[in-house]
């Protein structure tokens, strides 16, 4: 049973997320100037890019927790890895959808294979979509945790490599659709972007804690039930992809 109290700091963190995100979005619409080339559509940038960056960092974090789990054997690290990847996957779906909307608004089609960041992101997403099925296909919980950690580590190393490779393959003939202004970003835009990025990061950590707390409560309840009800009321644990503490 883990002694870490996941809920610690959950409330201030969620407040921080709200402040940063609401403030950031306010800045997007009331403070940041309209971009010259893309116009109003460019406002999606402040939502799409933070989602993508935080999702990718979340995947890498999942890999780091995987390393910690393999080295120390503490099941809590496996849980952290699982939750980080789980939530990053949700953010990744958001990034893909917002990117698609942006592509539709800019280029008129829902997907552009020319945009290297979108394509490399799709590849990473497809890879991590296999994480939960992989876990589910391994019955033994100890082996499931180990193999999931290996997957998380390999995936975490894959994220930067894939990004580099697809970026390098980007032909210079095709202009970067989803970039910002042609030149450097003006200060007001950069500030807005950073606030949104910070808000998204805070949201990610908040959701992580939330999920971890919920899982911890469920496990505590299960063991409490076992203690109170004894053998009569024992419900066999269903096979699941999520780590059990």
């Amino acid at each position, binding site marked *: 049973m883990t002694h870490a109290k996941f809920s610690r700091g959950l409330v201030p963190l969620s407040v921080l997320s709200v402040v940063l995100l609401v403030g950031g979005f306010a800045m997007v619409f009331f403070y940041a100037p309209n971009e010259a080339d*893309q*116009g109003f559509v460019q406002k999606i940038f402040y939502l799409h890019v933070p989602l993508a960056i935080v999702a990718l960092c979340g995947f890498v974090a999942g890999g780091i927790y995987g390393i910690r789990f393999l080295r120390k054997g503490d099941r809590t690290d496996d849980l952290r890895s699982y939750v980080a990847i789980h939530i990053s996957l949700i953010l990744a779906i958001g990034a893909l959808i917002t990117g698609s909307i*942006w592509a539709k608004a*800019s*280029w008129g089609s829902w997907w552009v294979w020319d945009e290297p960041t979108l394509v490399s992101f799709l590849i990473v997403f497809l890879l991590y979509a296999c994480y939960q099925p992989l876990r589910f296909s391994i019955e033994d919980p100890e082996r499931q945790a180990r193999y999931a950690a290996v997957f998380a580590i390999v995936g975490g190393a894959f994220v930067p490599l894939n990004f580099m490779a697809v970026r390098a393959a980007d032909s210079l003939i095709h202009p970067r659709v989803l970039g910002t202004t042609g030149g450097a970003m003006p200060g007001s835009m950069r500030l807005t972007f950073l606030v949104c990025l910070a808000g998204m990061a805070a949201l990610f950590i908040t959701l992580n804690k939330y999920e971890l707390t*919920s899982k911890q409560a469920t496990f505590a*309840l299960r063991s*409490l039930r076992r203690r109170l009800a004894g053998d009569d009321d024992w419900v066999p644990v269903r096979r699941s992809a999520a780590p059990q503490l």
Partner: protein
Amino acid sequence: MSPALPLDDAGPYVAAAYLVFLALVVIYVAIMAAKLSRISREINELAELAARRDEQREADRETVPR
């Protein structure tokens, strides 16, 4: 570079993007709410179970003949 969409055309797309984000967050909140209600239901059941066990122990104690 494609020409910039005028505000009326671009508005729906930007709104859609931000609404997608809102939807994701709200769906997550809903799922967590369901989990929370399940957990509180289980806690109530366990509390009942504990109360019943205490009653049982009280009842058992009293059957010892004097």
